[in-house]
């Protein structure tokens, strides 16, 4: 019995410490569990116009009552909108996606939107947004990361 207890302890220790490996828990680590409300991210010419645009997109999307968390990333080509749907609304995922795409395309006809409700895309978007805070993280790297996310999104089973 004692041996079993010891093993249990060891396992739980490993599990617990695994969660806080580098001592610093970032939002992207917890993006699955809590509402993060990441600010919109711009990988583009840093004009006032563009900034307003992403913020307005984020605001518009967040207005939808079926969602509870939104991450927006805009580069010069594409705009990624990742969102989390309220649990009971997950039955209507397809409908929500359609509605959102329609709304966005009508309002911002010049933008090319990539819309995803996937947790993974959301996590990656939050991670990207966190990395952008680091001044050493160049725009080129950011663009590369965004392309990777988009590629991941289009991947099917």
């Amino acid at each position: 019995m004692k041996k079993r207890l010891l093993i249990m302890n060891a396992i739980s220790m490993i599990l617990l410490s695994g969660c806080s490996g580098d001592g610093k828990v970032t939002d992207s680590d917890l993006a699955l569990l809590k509402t993060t409300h990441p600010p919109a991210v711009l990988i583009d010419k840093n004009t006032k116009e563009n900034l307003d645009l992403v913020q307005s997109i984020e605001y518009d999307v967040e207005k939808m009552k079926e969602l509870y968390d939104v991450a927006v990333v805009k580069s010069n080509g594409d705009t990624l909108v990742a969102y989390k749907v309220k649990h009971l609304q997950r039955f209507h995922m397809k409908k929500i996606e359609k509605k959102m795409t329609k709304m966005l395309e009508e309002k911002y006809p010049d933008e090319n939107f990539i819309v995803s409700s996937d947790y993974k895309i959301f996590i990656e978007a939050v991670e990207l947004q966190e990395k952008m805070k680091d001044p050493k993280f160049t725009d080129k790297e950011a663009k590369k990361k965004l392309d990777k996310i988009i590629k991941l999104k289009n991947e099917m089973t």
Partner: protein
Amino acid sequence: MSNKANKTPEQMKYEKLEQKHELKRPVLKNCIRAFWVGGLICTVGQAVTYFYIYFFNFTEQTAGNPTVATMIFISMLLTGFGVYDRLGQFAGAGSAVPVTGFGNAVISAAIEHRTEGFVLGVGGNMFKLAGSVILFGVFSAFVVALIKTLLTIWGVI
């Protein structure tokens, strides 16, 4: 041949007498157990899905495949250790309906017939229970896909 349809009056009379003594399946108890154990297995499955989303490059869409593989692997281990049949007796449909039940059906038949050799024993009998699941699964998938294709061609959906 005496089928259910043409029983003699004597047989009917006996059936009534026997029914009186027959122990009934505890349906409600079985349902509750199946609900809990089935739910527990699915929770483990969900945890595995999140594991793949977090630590590997899988989205919600693509994490399904490795999750199924992992769950089947776990159920095969449990079958080999002789735990799964006890779980099955306790939980009934709760452990038979999830994909782990499929893994159990395959590996239990394989274990059972290993004394008859690898080719005719394991190879020949491995799918004796799961074979019909595969056959009718594939066939019904084919029929549904056919219907959907036809409906799409005719412009119904």
